[in-house]
C-alpha cells in the first residue's frame, strides 16, 4: 500500500510539475505563430465558403445561419468531376476529413470503395457508384457502423466505420458597412445564434479553453480507475462545467473522445443553453455530470470589426 502511495505521489508530483511549468509559460512561439496562422486561415475560409454558398447576397444585411447536422457522415470527399479519378467499379476517395470517422478507420485518399455493407458500389441500371453510396448513406443513422470494402494499390480490404452526425455549422457575417462579423469560434469556441424573441445576437464563449488535457494510456487504471479517456490536468475555471483537476472524461453525451482535440470537437457541437452529460472518473469512481452550456448575451455590434 505504501509503495502504491509513493508511486501515486510521484505520478501526481510529475503531473503537477508538468502542469505548473506549462502554466507558467506561454505556448512557445512556434505554437503561437501556428495558432495565428490558423486563425487567419479560418477567417479567410469563412468568407470564401460563405461567398461560394451565396449566403452573402447583395442585400448587405447581417445573416445568421445555424445548421444542425442530421445526416450520418463518414468523412470523405467522393464526387468525381473533371480531372478527378472516376471508375465504374466503385467510388474513389478524393479526400479524407482529418479526425473524421473514415480517417479514424484508416481510409486514405485514393482508396477505391467497392462495397458498403452488402451493397456493391458499381455502376448499375444507370446509377453511378457515387449516387449508390449517397443513397445507401441516406438510410444510415448517425452513430451506426458501416462496413466499407475498398481497393488500395490493388489489394482488397474491409474496415468498419462508425458514422457521425454532421457537425453543426454556424455562419454569421455582415456584408454591409461596418465590416464583417468577427467569427472567432476558432480562437475560442464562440458560438452565435439569434434570440427569436429580441432579435439580438447571443454568443457563448466556451469556458473550456483554459483547460489542459492529455489522453490516458495503459497502466493508468491503478491511479484513475480507468486507462482510457481524457485526463483533465487542469480544469476550466468556469464552475458551470463542474470538472475538477484529475477528473478523467470518459464520455461526452455518450460519445467517447479519442484525444483532447476530439473532446473539444464534441464539446463545441453543443449550443448555448443545451445540456450535455459528462461521464467522468473521479477518485476512481465513474459518475455522470449534467452540464448546461452557458450563454453570454452580447449585441452583435460588439462583434463587428471596423473597416
Amino acid at each position: 500500500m505504501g509503495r502504491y502511495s509513493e508511486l501515486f505521489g510521484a505520478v501526481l508530483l510529475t503531473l503537477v510539475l508538468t502542469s505548473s511549468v506549462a502554466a507558467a509559460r506561454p505556448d512557445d512561439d512556434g505554437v503561437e505563430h501556428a495558432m495565428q496562422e490558423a486563425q487567419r486561415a479560418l477567417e479567410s475560409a469563412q468568407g470564401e465558403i460563405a461567398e461560394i454558398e451565396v449566403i452573402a447576397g447583395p442585400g448587405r444585411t447581417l445573416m445568421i445561419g445555424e445548421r444542425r447536422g442530421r445526416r450520418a457522415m463518414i468523412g470523405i470527399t467522393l464526387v468525381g468531376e473533371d480531372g478527378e479519378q472516376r471508375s465504374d467499379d466503385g467510388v474513389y476517395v478524393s479526400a479524407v476529413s482529418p479526425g473524421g470517422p473514415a480517417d479514424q478507420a484508416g481510409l486514405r485518399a485514393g482508396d477505391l470503395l467497392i462495397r458498403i455493407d452488402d451493397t456493391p458500389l458499381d455502376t448499375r441500371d444507370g446509377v453511378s457508384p457515387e449516387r449508390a453510396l449517397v443513397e445507401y448513406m441516406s438510410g444510415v443513422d448517425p452513430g451506426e457502423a458501416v462496413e466499407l470494402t475498398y481497393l488500395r494499390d490493388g489489394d482488397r480490404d474491409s474496415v468498419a466505420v462508425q458514422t457521425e452526425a454532421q457537425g453543426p455549422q454556424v455562419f454569421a457575417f455582415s456584408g454591409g458597412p461596418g465590416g464583417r462579423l468577427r467569427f472567432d469560434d476558432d480562437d475560442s469556441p464562440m458560438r452565435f445564434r439569434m434570440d427569436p424573441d429580441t432579435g439580438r445576437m447571443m454568443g457563448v464563449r466556451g469556458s473550456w479553453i483554459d483547460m489542459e488535457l492529455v489522453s490516458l494510456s495503459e497502466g493508468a487504471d491503478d491511479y484513475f480507475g480507468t486507462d482510457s479517456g481524457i485526463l483533465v490536468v487542469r480544469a476550466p475555471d468556469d464552475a458551470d462545467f463542474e470538472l475538477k483537476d484529475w477528473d478523467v472524461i470518459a464520455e461526452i453525451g455518450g460519445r467517447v473522445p479519442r484525444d483532447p482535440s476530439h473532446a473539444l470537437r464534441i464539446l463545441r457541437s453543443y449550443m448555448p443553453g443545451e445540456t450535455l452529460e459528462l461521464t467522468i472518473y473521479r477518485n476512481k469512481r465513474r459518475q455522470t455530470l449534467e452540464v448546461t452550456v452557458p450563454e453570454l448575451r452580447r449585441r452583435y455590434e460588439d462583434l463587428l470589426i471596423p473597416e
Partner: protein
Amino acid sequence: MHAEIAELLNLRDSSLVDARIKQHVDACPRCRRELAHLSAVRAGLRALPELPAPDISWEDVVARAQAQGPILRSERLDGWYGAAVGIAATVVMTVSLLLLGQREAPTQPTTVPAAAAMVDSTPQLMGRSRQLEESLRSVDLQGRIMSGRTASTIAALEERIAYIDQLLSRTDGPPLQQEQRRRLWQQRVVLLDSLVRLRYAEAQRADF
C-alpha cells in the same frame, strides 16, 4: 493566482476578459511582464518584412525545399534571428532529450505555401491535399498535454475542413460550378496546411 496564458492572450488581443483578471494583471509585475513578452512576440512577427513571392512554379519550390531539407517555419526567420531561433531550438531540444531521453522529435511534415494554393488547378490542389493528409498522419500528439485553446483550434480546423468536404460531396441543391469547386479545394488545402503546421508546432513544444 496569476493570469492564465489564454487570458493574457485575450488581453493582448483586446478580447473579452474578466475585469478581475485585468485588475490583477495591472497590479502584478509578473503577469505584466508575461503580457509584455506576448505583445513583443506578436510585434516582432508583424515587423518581419513581407518578401515578394519569387516567380517560380510550385515544382521549383518543392525541388528547392527538398534540396535544402524540410522547412516548416517561415522563411522570414532568417539572418541573426533565424540563427538565434535555431540555436535556442537546439539547446531546448538537447536539454529536453537529455532530461527525458525518450521523446523523439517528429519528422518535419511537408507543408504548402498559401500563395501556391491560390493559383493551382483543381487536380493540383487535390494532389496537395493528399500530400498534406499524409503529413498530418505523421504527426503524433498522443500523450501530449494540450491546452483547451490549442485543442479547440484544431477542432475548428477539422470541422471547417469536414464542412468543405460535405460541400464538395453534396448531391442536393444546384451542382457546384468548376470554379467554385476549385476554390473549395483551395480553402481545403490552406486549412489543411494550417492544421499540419499547428499539430507539428504542438508536437515540437517541450512539456517541461
